[in-house]
């Protein structure tokens, strides 16, 4: 496979993820993780680490795709994936926005949104499940997940602070206990 051909393959995969991301990026995580493992040999553990990188940066968490692209094909891979992942959805938004400006609100747009909501929730739970299966592999990681969830539900502390605090605590606990 030539380099150009492999970049084209990479581009078509991420262009498809862009269009399939119903209700947000979490929906495509299981599909993305499976493809990364099968075609590019990226382990579940590495995938979750790269997912963590996406969480550490500002902006959309799905910018993690850049780190995947870099892993697969260096800078050319990162650029390819960036363009492929954001362009199709951007074009659809532009076309959708124009149509919506002309047509205005219709009962069908509402119907599509209502239909997509439970579907995207189901896919989000699948995404959550895919990440959880890799990320929660020991008492410390389970505890961190539960702690983060509980603090988000029960307090009004800024989610960024919760994430940072939980992660820092986690590193220390994992280091001391030697458990994941």
């Amino acid at each position: 496979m030539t380099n150009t051909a492999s970049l084209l393959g990479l581009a078509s995969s991420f262009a498809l993820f862009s269009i399939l991301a119903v209700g947000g990026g979490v929906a495509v995580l299981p599909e993305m993780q499976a493809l990364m493992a099968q075609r590019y040999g990226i382990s579940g553990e590495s995938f979750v680490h790269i997912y963590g990188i996406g969480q550490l940066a500002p902006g959309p968490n799905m910018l993690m795709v850049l780190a995947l692209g870099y892993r697969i094909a260096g800078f050319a891979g990162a650029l390819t994936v960036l363009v492929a992942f954001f362009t199709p959805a951007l074009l659809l938004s532009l076309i959708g926005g124009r149509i919506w400006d002309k047509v205005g609100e219709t009962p069908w747009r509402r119907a599509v949104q209502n239909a997509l909501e439970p579907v995207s929730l189901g896919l989000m739970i699948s995404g959550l499940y895919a990440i959880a299966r890799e990320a929660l592999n020991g008492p410390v990681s389970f505890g961190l997940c539960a702690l983060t969830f509980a603090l988000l539900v029960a307090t009004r502390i800024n989610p960024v602070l919760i994430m940072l605090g939980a992660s820092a605590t986690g590193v220390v606990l994992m280091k001391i206990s030697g458990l994941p």
Partner: protein
Amino acid sequence: MSDTTLAAPARPGLGELFFQFLIIGAISFGGGIVAYERSLLVDQKKWVDADSFMAALALSQTLPGLNSVNLAAIVGQRLAGLSGAIASVVGLILPGAILVLILGILYENSHNNPLANLALAAVAAAATGLIANTVRELGRKRFRDPLSLALIAVTFTLMSILKLSLPLVLAIVFPIALWFNRPGARS
């Protein structure tokens, strides 16, 4: 809504759009970007009124892709055409893209650095709790509705238990969901 155009007291230039979205892209750690966009567009700059913002948000949720990015594209286009959309989207993703790339390069070059791996494992574990909470918040209403609950369960089963491909899952579930939610089907 009587008027679908955005009430824009002063239309921003391309540089202004790019710069304002760049700030959001640089400070929106931990998600919740739509809230930042609302604050910028509706409250601070008043480029968009609240109703138009909600309508654009609904549209961005209807379309595939990331909601925050779709929203930037839709509003950017209305405020300053195609180049406005591009300026807004590029501004929004540029800071995070640069940081992710830097972190990605560091990660690839320190593959066996135990501390880096621990840190990313801890972040991923905490992020799992964050996604769980997002699901809880987004699903609050839907989890109480038997039909929605059934659709959620079927989608999850097809995707995670039967491990069908995502296009196939959507091809099966979306028509069914649309049928049940067609105009006039449910009050």
